[in-house]
C-alpha cells in the first residue's frame, strides 16, 4: 500500500494543490463566509459548509478516478491524504488572518482587510470551528481528509449503493438550497402547514432531510426508474403510442396549471423564462439558422417595449390610447421594420465584424432612448410610466400568472413559425448561408433577401417579447435594455444547442430560471452564472440538446443503415 501511495504521490500532490486552490478561492471571495449564514439542514449544515467541502470532495473524486486500478484501501488513504493536504492552503489562510488581521492594527499599511474584504475574523472563526489557532487547524486538516475519503466513496462504493446515495445527497442538498421555492410550492399545494414542518428559516428540518434521503435512496437502490423504462420498452407498439399521447396531454395540462402550483414568484420566473424563450427562438433564427452573430438583439426588444409604451401609456408621452391587443401588432411591425433597417447596413459584413456592429446598434438604441435629445418622444431617463396591463374580456391581467399564459402563447407561436420555416426552402437557405455564404449564393440564393428575412423575423419575436415585457412591468426605463439581455439570449441558445428548439427552452430554464431561483445569492449570483457558463460549455460544447437532422430519404426506416462513415482524409 505504501508503495502504491508513493507511486501516486505526485498525483496526490497535484490534486491536493488543485483542491486547495478551489478551497481558498471560495473562502477568499467570501462565498464560504457569506453562505455560512444560510442553513441547509438544521442549524448545523450550512451552505458555507457545502461550498467549503467542494474542494476536498472534488479531490477525492479525482483521486479515485486517477487510481482506478489500485486496491480500494489505498485509494481511500490516498483520498484522505489528498483531501487533508488540500486544507494546507486554508491553514495558511488562517495564519495570515491571525497575523495580519486579527492581531494587526487597522491603520497599518499591511492591514490586509483593507485590500481583501473577506479576510475577516468571522471567516477565521468558521474555518477553525471556533476552536482557536492550533486545535482548529488540526480539526480542519482532519475534516478535509475525511471529505477526501467521502469524495473517493462517490466512485468506489458498490454501484447500486453509490448511485442511491449520490442521488439522495443531490436531492437533499437541492431541496435545502431551493428551500424557499420548495416551501412556496408546498404552500400552494397543501397550505402553510407542511412547509413549516419541513423548513424552518429556509433550512431543512433534519428529520425531513433524513426521510427525503431515505426515499430517494430507495428509489435509486431498487432501480425503480429503470424498471419503469424497461416496462415501457416492453410494451407493445400501440400501447406505447397511446401512452405517448397520454404523456403529451399530461404535459400540456401541466404547462397550463403550472403557475397555479408554484405561486407568485415562480410564476414571475416562469414569465421571464417564457419571455426569453420567445426571444431565444427569434435569435435562434438569426444566429442558429442564418449564422449571423447578433449581439445587439436587445435593440428589437427595446423597440417592442417602447412601441407598446408609447401607444398605450396614459401618461404625457402617450401618442394614442390603443389597448394592449391593438398595440401588439404595431409593436411587432415596428420590430420588423427596424430589423430591416438595421439589417441593411450590415448585409456585407461577416462574422465578428457583424458581432461588434450589432453590439454597437444595441448600445446606440439604448443611449438614444436615454438621451435628452429624444426625451420628448421616449421619456429619456425618466422612461415611460403607467403602461396599462392587458385586459382579457374585461379582466385585467395584472398578475404574473395571467401574463404567463400570454408568453406561453407567444412562445408557442414562435416555435411553430420557427419549425415550419426551418423545414422549408427558407430554412434550408438560412442553413446553407450559415455553412458557406459564398457557395450558398452560388446556389442561386439571394443573400440580401435571406439575411433580411432572418433579421426581421427574429426581430418580430424579440419585439413581441418586448411589448409583453412593457405591459407586465407597467414602466419602462432605458436601463432595462442593456447588453446583458442580448448576452443572456445568445448564451441560452448556445447552451441549449444552437439551432435546436427544445434547446432554447432548456437553455432558458437553466440560464434564466436557475439564476432567478437563486436570487437570494445576490452578490454571488452572477459569479455562479459565469462559472456555470464555462462549465456547461466545457462539458457539453454542442449544447444540451444539439440540433438533430431530419431523415428525408429514408423516411420510415429510421436507423436501419449502419453509420456510414469513412476517413476524412483529403
Amino acid at each position, binding site marked *: 500500500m505504501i508503495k502504491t501511495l508513493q507511486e501516486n504521490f505526485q498525483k496526490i500532490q497535484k490534486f491536493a494543490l488543485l483542491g486547495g486552490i478551489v478551497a481558498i478561492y471560495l473562502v477568499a471571495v467570501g462565498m464560504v463566509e457569506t453562505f455560512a449564514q444560510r442553513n441547509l439542514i438544521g442549524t448545523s449544515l450550512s451552505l458555507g459548509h457545502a461550498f467549503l467541502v467542494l474542494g476536498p470532495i472534488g479531490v477525492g473524486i479525482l483521486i479515485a478516478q486517477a487510481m482506478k486500478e489500485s486496491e480500494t484501501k489505498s485509494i481511500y488513504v490516498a483520498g484522505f491524504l489528498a483531501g487533508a493536504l488540500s486544507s494546507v492552503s486554508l491553514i495558511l489562510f488562517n495564519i495570515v488572518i491571525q497575523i495580519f488581521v486579527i492581531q494587526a492594527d487597522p491603520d497599518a499599511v499591511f492591514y490586509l482587510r483593507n485590500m481583501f474584504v473577506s479576510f475577516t475574523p468571522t471567516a477565521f472563526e468558521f474555518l477553525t470551528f471556533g476552536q482557536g489557532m492550533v486545535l482548529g487547524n488540526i480539526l480542519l486538516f482532519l475534516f478535509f481528509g475525511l471529505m477526501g475519503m467521502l469524495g473517493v466513496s462517490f466512485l468506489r462504493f458498490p454501484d447500486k449503493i453509490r448511485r442511491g446515495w449520490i442521488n439522495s445527497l443531490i436531492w437533499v442538498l437541492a431541496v435545502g438550497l431551493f428551500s424557499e421555492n420548495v416551501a412556496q410550492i408546498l404552500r400552494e399545494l397543501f397550505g402553510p402547514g407542511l412547509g413549516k414542518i419541513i423548513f424552518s428559516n429556509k433550512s431543512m428540518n433534519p428529520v425531513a432531510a433524513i426521510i427525503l434521503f431515505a426515499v430517494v435512496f430507495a428509489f435509486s437502490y431498487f432501480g425503480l426508474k429503470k424498471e419503469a423504462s424497461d416496462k415501457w420498452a416492453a410494451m407493445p407498439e400501440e400501447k406505447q403510442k397511446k401512452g405517448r399521447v397520454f404523456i403529451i396531454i399530461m404535459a400540456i395540462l401541466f404547462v397550463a396549471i403550472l403557475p397555479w402550483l408554484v405561486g407568485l414568484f415562480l410564476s414571475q420566473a416562469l414569465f421571464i423564462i417564457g419571455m426569453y424563450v420567445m426571444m431565444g427562438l427569434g435569435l435562434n433564427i438569426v444566429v442558429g439558422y442564418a449564422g449571423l452573430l447578433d449581439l445587439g438583439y436587445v435593440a428589437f426588444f427595446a423597440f417592442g417595449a417602447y412601441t407598446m409604451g408609447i401607444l398605450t401609456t396614459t401618461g404625457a408621452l402617450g401618442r394614442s390610447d390603443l389597448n394592449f391587443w391593438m398595440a401588439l401588432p404595431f409593436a411587432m411591425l415596428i420590430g420588423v421594420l427596424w430589423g430591416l433597417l438595421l439589417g441593411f447596413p450590415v448585409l456585407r459584413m461577416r462574422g465578428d465584424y457583424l458581432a461588434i456592429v450589432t453590439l454597437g446598434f444595441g448600445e446606440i438604441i439604448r443611449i438614444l432612448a436615454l438621451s435628452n435629445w429624444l426625451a420628448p418622444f421616449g421619456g429619456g431617463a425618466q422612461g415611460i410610466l403607467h403602461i396599462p396591463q392587458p385586459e382579457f374580456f374585461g379582466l385585467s391581467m395584472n398578475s404574473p400568472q395571467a401574463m404567463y399564459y400570454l408568453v406561453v402563447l407567444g412562445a408557442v407561436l414562435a416555435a411553430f413559425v420557427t419549425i415550419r420555416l426551418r423545414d422549408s426552402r427558407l430554412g434550408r437557405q438560412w442553413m446553407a448561408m450559415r455553412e458557406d455564404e459564398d457557395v450558398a449564393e452560388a446556389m442561386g440564393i439571394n443573400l440580401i433577401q435571406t439575411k433580411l428575412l432572418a433579421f426581421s423575423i427574429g426581430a418580430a419575436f424579440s419585439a413581441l417579447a418586448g411589448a409583453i415585457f412593457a405591459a407586465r412591468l407597467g414602466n419602462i426605463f432605458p436601463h432595462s435594455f442593456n447588453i446583458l439581455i442580448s448576452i443572456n439570449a445568445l448564451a441560452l441558445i448556445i447552451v441549449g444547442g444552437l439551432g435546436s428548439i427544445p434547446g432554447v427552452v432548456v437553455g432558458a430554464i437553466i440560464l434564466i430560471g436557475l439564476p432567478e431561483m437563486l*436570487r437570494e445569492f445576490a*452578490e454571488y449570483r452572477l459569479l455562479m452564472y459565469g462559472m456555470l457558463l464555462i462549465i456547461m460549455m466545457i462539458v457539453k460544447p454542442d449544447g444540451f440538446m444539439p440540433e438533430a437532422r431530419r431523415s428525408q430519404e429514408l423516411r420510415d426506416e429510421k436507423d436501419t443503415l449502419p453509420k456510414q462513415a469513412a476517413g476524412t482524409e483529403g
Partner: protein
Amino acid sequence: MSKRLFAVFAALMIVGLILTACGPKAPAFECTDAIGCLDVAPDEPVHLAYMLTISGATAFLGEDSKGAIEIAIDDRDGKILGHDIVLTGEDSGCSAEGGQTAATKVASDPTIVGVIGTNCSSAATAAIDTISSAGLVMISSSNTAPALTIEGQTWKPGYYRVCHTDLFQGAVAAEFAYNELGARTTATIHDGSPYADQLQAVYAKRFIELGGEVTFAGAVNIGDTDMRTVLTTVAADGPDVLYFPIFEPEGDFIVAQSSEIAGLENTTLMGADGLLADSFPENAGPNSVGMYLSGPYVVGEAYEAFLAKWDAKFGGVPPSGFHAFAYDGTNIILDAVEAVAVVDEDGTLHIGRQALRDSMSSLSNYDGLTGALDCTDKDFGVVGISHGDCATGGALGIFELGQAELDGNWPPPAIYTPGE
C-alpha cells in the same frame, strides 16, 4: 406501476399526511385587520426582507444600505419582542424588471413583515404594486423620485421612504446657489439615471424661478470616464455654478478633470448626496477643495456611533451616503411592529398588516439618525398629496469641502440649511 413503486408512493403520501396533520393548531387570536394578520409562532423569527441592488455596477448602493440594516438589527441584539429577527434579501438591481421580480419573491413569502428597499426609484416604481397588494410595508432609503409618494401618481398604500425627494433637495441647492453664492448662471449635468435627471431638472427650474439662467443642461453616461468633453462644453459659457447631482465614480471624474479645462476657473462645483461619502474627497482629489455638496444633514453623536459600529463590523466606512436612511427605515418598521404586535401568552405575535401601515403613517417627531422624521400625509399644493414621505426636508444641508475633508475629516461642515 410496479408494486415497489406503489409502496414508495404510498409511504410518501402517508408521511405527507401525517406531517400536514401535525401542523400548528389554529390560534385563539382573532384577526380583525382589514388586510389580514401575520402570526409569528413562539419559536419563529420576525422576518424582515430587503430589496436592494446587490449586483452590477451600482452594487455599492445596496451594500451601503444592507450594512446599515444589519447594524440596526444588531442594535437590538437581533431580537424583537423576544423573537429573533431574520433578514433575507433580494437583489432588485437598479432596474424596473429587477424590482418587480424581487417584489414577487418577497410578496410570495407570507412570513415577511416588511421590506427595506429599494435603492433605485425605477425598481420601486415597478415593485410598488406587487408589494402593496400583498399587504406589506416597504420603506426606502434612497428612492427620491417625487411621484412615488404622490397620491394619484405612482404611490400605493404601504410605501414609505426616509430620504427626502428631489423636490426638496433640488430646490435647496438652487436657492443656495442663487442666494448664498450669488450665482446668476448655472450649468447642470446628469448621468442618465432617473434620479439625477429629475434632481437637475428641479434645480434648474427653481434656479430660473429665482431669476437665474441655465447656460447648459448636459448629460453623461454611467460608465463614462472621460469628462473632459462635457466639461469643455460647460466651460464654453463659463457659468457661475456647475451642478452635477450624480454618483461616484462619474462625479469623481468631473471634479478631478475640471482643473485641466481652461474656462472653468471661475465656476463653482456643486454635487449632491450621491457624492456625499467620506471616500469622495480622497477619490476626487484636491479639486474637491472648495466645492459644495447638497445632501442629508446627518450629524451628531448617534451618527458617530453608527460609523464606529460600521467600522467594527465591516471595516472602513459605508460606500455611499444613504446608510443612515436605511438604518432609520429599519428602525421605523421594527418600532411599528413593536407598537402594533399583539403578544399571546405563549409568545406568539399577531401583527395586523393594516395596523402596521397605520402605525407607520402616523409616525411623527421620530428622532432618527437623519433628524426628525414625520411620515404623516402632507399637502404639497400643486404637486399633490403626499403619503409616507418621512423626511421633513429640515435634515437637508449644503456642505463645503475643504482641505480638512481631503485629509480625512468627515463629515464636512454644513454651511447652509434651508431654515436659515
